[in-house]
C-alpha cells in the first residue's frame, strides 16, 4: 500500500480533503465561541491529512512534505504559544495576561450580554493561542502517522518476503 490505492479512492479523497480541512479550521477559529478549540480542530485536520496519506501512499506524501518541516511547524506553534503568554507579561501585569481585550482592531471587542457566533471579534488573545495550539497539534499528529507509514513501507520491502501475512 506504499504505492497508494486505486484511482477511485485517490479522486474521492482528493475531493473530500478540502472540506475536512475547512471544517477543522472552522473549529479552531471559533474555539472561543463554540465547542472545540485548538486540539479538537487540529485532530480533525490531521485526520484529513492521514486520509490523504493512506489514499496516495507514503512515498508520494514524503515527496510533498518532510517530517523535518513538520517538526519545524510544531516547534513554531509551541514558541508562538509561549511568546503570546510572555507578551502578557510585557504589556500587562502577569503571565497569560489577556492584553488584547479592549482594543478595536484584533479580537478586542467586549460582547454585551451573551457570546454568540456573531461575536467573532472577541476573546482577546485566546483565538491566537487557539491558532498556535492548532498548528502544533496538526503538525505533531500528522508527523507521527507519516513517520510510521514511511518507516514500515521501507521495512516491508526487505523483511517480509515469506508471504506469511
Amino acid at each position, binding site marked *: 500500500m506504499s504505492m497508494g490505492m486505486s484511482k477511485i479512492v485517490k479522486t474521492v479523497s482528493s475531493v473530500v480533503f478540502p472540506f475536512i480541512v475547512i471544517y477543522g479550521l472552522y473549529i479552531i477559529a471559533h474555539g472561543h465561541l463554540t465547542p472545540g478549540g485548538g486540539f479538537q480542530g487540529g485532530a480533525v485536520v490531521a485526520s484529513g491529512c*492521514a486520509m490523504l496519506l493512506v489514499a496516495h501512499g507514503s512515498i508520494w506524501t514524503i515527496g510533498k512534505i518532510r517530517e523535518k518541516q513538520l517538526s519545524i511547524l510544531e516547534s513554531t506553534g509551541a514558541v508562538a504559544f509561549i511568546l503570546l503568554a510572555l507578551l502578557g507579561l510585557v504589556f500587562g501585569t502577569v503571565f497569560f495576561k489577556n492584553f488584547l481585550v479592549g482594543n478595536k482592531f484584533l479580537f478586542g471587542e467586549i460582547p454585551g450580554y451573551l457570546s454568540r457566533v456573531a461575536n467573532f471579534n472577541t476573546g482577546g488573545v485566546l483565538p491566537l493561542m487557539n491558532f498556535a495550539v492548532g498548528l502544533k497539534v496538526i503538525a505533531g499528529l500528522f508527523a507521527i502517522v507519516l513517520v510510521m507509514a514511511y518507516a514500515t513501507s521501507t*521495512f516491508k520491502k526487505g523483511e517480509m518476503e515469506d508471504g506469511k501475512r
Partner: protein
Amino acid sequence: MVENLLIDIVHAVVPILVVITSVVAIYLKDLLAATIAVAAMSLLLSLEFYILQAPDVAIAEAGVGACLTTAILIIAIRATRRMEEV
C-alpha cells in the same frame, strides 16, 4: 415526553453496545477486524459523550480515537502479521 423516553433508551443502549464491541475486540483473532471493532467502540463512545452534553470531548474522541488510532494500528498490522498467534 416522547423525546425524554427516546433519550433514556439511547442512554441505555449505547453503553451496552460499547461494552459489546470492546469484548468482541478482545476475543477476535483477526487483528484487522479487532481494529475495526475498536474504531466502532470509539465512535459509539463519542456518540455517548455527545448525548451527555460534552461536545468538546466528543470531537476529540471522534478525531483521535476513531481515525488516527485506527490508521496507526492498521499501519502497524501491515508491517507485521495479521493473525494473532495462539
